[in-house]
């Protein structure tokens, strides 16, 4: 699989350190991405941080960390800094070379007939057929209902996790447009 092992895997032995690490430092990543537009390279993950350079549209970068609306990247020529997360795409495209590896790790997949329909075995999956042909399970529904929480309980739990409601967040119409290009 294309995805590199991420922090959870590498730090399995020290769960506490892991949580603290995530909470304090964002995610350690080792993914690659491509810039969809020429982007400022910032010293810190903020709009008003010092610009230290620029990465051209179409450049490949290695993503090393993520914070807020920003990705910390390294460019092919060794520059590093922060670029806007939304300026980067991570598609692997249609590289067929990794298909075998992916399927090998996630279950045996048998391709049946010329239609290319795949049937997954060995892994409990949820296919289109299963969703439409299943039988109801009222006991599971009762269980689900039993786990429900009230909004006041959820708010209390959120406070314990140091979360608080933020005011001033605007509604955003899906047909509106952000101002493009003001901060590349």
């Amino acid at each position, binding site marked *: 699989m294309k995805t590199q092992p991420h922090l959870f895997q590498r730090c399995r032995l020290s769960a506490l350190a892991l949580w603290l690490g995530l*909470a304090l430092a964002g995610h350690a990543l080792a993914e690659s991405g491509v810039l969809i537009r020429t982007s400022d390279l910032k010293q810190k993950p903020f709009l008003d941080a010092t610009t230290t350079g620029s990465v051209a549209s179409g450049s490949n970068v290695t993503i090393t960390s993520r914070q807020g609306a920003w990705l910390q990247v390294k460019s092919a020529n060794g520059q590093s800094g922060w670029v806007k997360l939304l300026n980067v795409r991570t598609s692997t495209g249609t590289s067929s070379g990794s298909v075998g590896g992916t399927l090998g790790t996630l279950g045996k997949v048998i391709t049946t007939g010329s239609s290319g329909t795949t049937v997954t075995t060995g892994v409990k*999956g949820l296919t289109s057929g299963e969703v439409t042909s299943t039988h109801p399970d009222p006991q599971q529904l009762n269980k689900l209902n039993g786990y429900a929480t009230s909004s006041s309980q959820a708010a209390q739990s959120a406070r314990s996790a140091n979360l608080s409601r933020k005011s001033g967040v605007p509604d955003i119409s899906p047909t509106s447009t952000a101002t493009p290009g003001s901060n590349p």
Partner: protein
Amino acid sequence: MRHTLLALALSATCVMPAQAANLNDILNQLGNNPDLVNAIGSTVKNFADANRNIGPQEEQEIGNGLASNMLGAAPLVNDPNLQRYVNDVGVWVASQSGVTGINWRFGVIDTNTINSFAMPGGVVFITKGLLAQLHSEAELACVLGHESTHVLRHHHLRAIQSASGKDALSSALQGVVAYKGNQQAQQIGANLASGFSEVYVRGLDKSDEFEADINGMVLCARAGYNPYALPAVLQTLDALNPQDSNLQMMFSTHPSPRARLDKIDQVVGDRLEPWASGTENTVRFGAATAHYTTSNR
């Protein structure tokens, strides 16, 4: 209908019970769709005409029937701590809509398929497979905010009324009639469930998925999280191999992660940047999910 619902949902100060599901609109389609009447038969039509009052309670019962069906295909992960945690996060995020009276129930279902689902009335499922891809509570919160938006804006009802959902509509209608004739949730009838289940196979309207992404970010920001955790999840999905069998259903029912990222880039851009310093992660995320995020890689 859409504008009314939107206006209601967007009114942050407005406190009200969940809006009535517009299943009535489905029934109304009988009037201008003779093919449909032929398909379901005049007895069903007459019954439907006489029983078109379907309110929030009934919407919830229908959602319960669908949830029960989904759980028949993939049961809940047997981990009460995880399930309660997901409810704590989900209800916190969904309640930022200001809409009250929805019986929210969130659950992690036991399948490696990477997906999440919303049912009319307030049930939201995330699969163990998707949970395994998440890095933080902010990412979880944004995914749940996306699904909650489908519930808040009745997107399933719109999908079932769309032209591509004709068969589903016919099944749903027969199911509504069966349901109205027998007020027991477990007797909703295979027709209704299969009608709506079609929606889970076909997917919702693309525009509704984009709307759910954008409003999911807004809810996430109001709940105190970094809203850019949503595009972060999409980048993770975008980096996965699209041939992966566990992704097939998500990819067949949603616009591609790349198209969703492009839409967020175009519509949201920097507009939520002031809230990007919100919470990324919590200790409780690690405590509740560590087992799943490490074991499914």
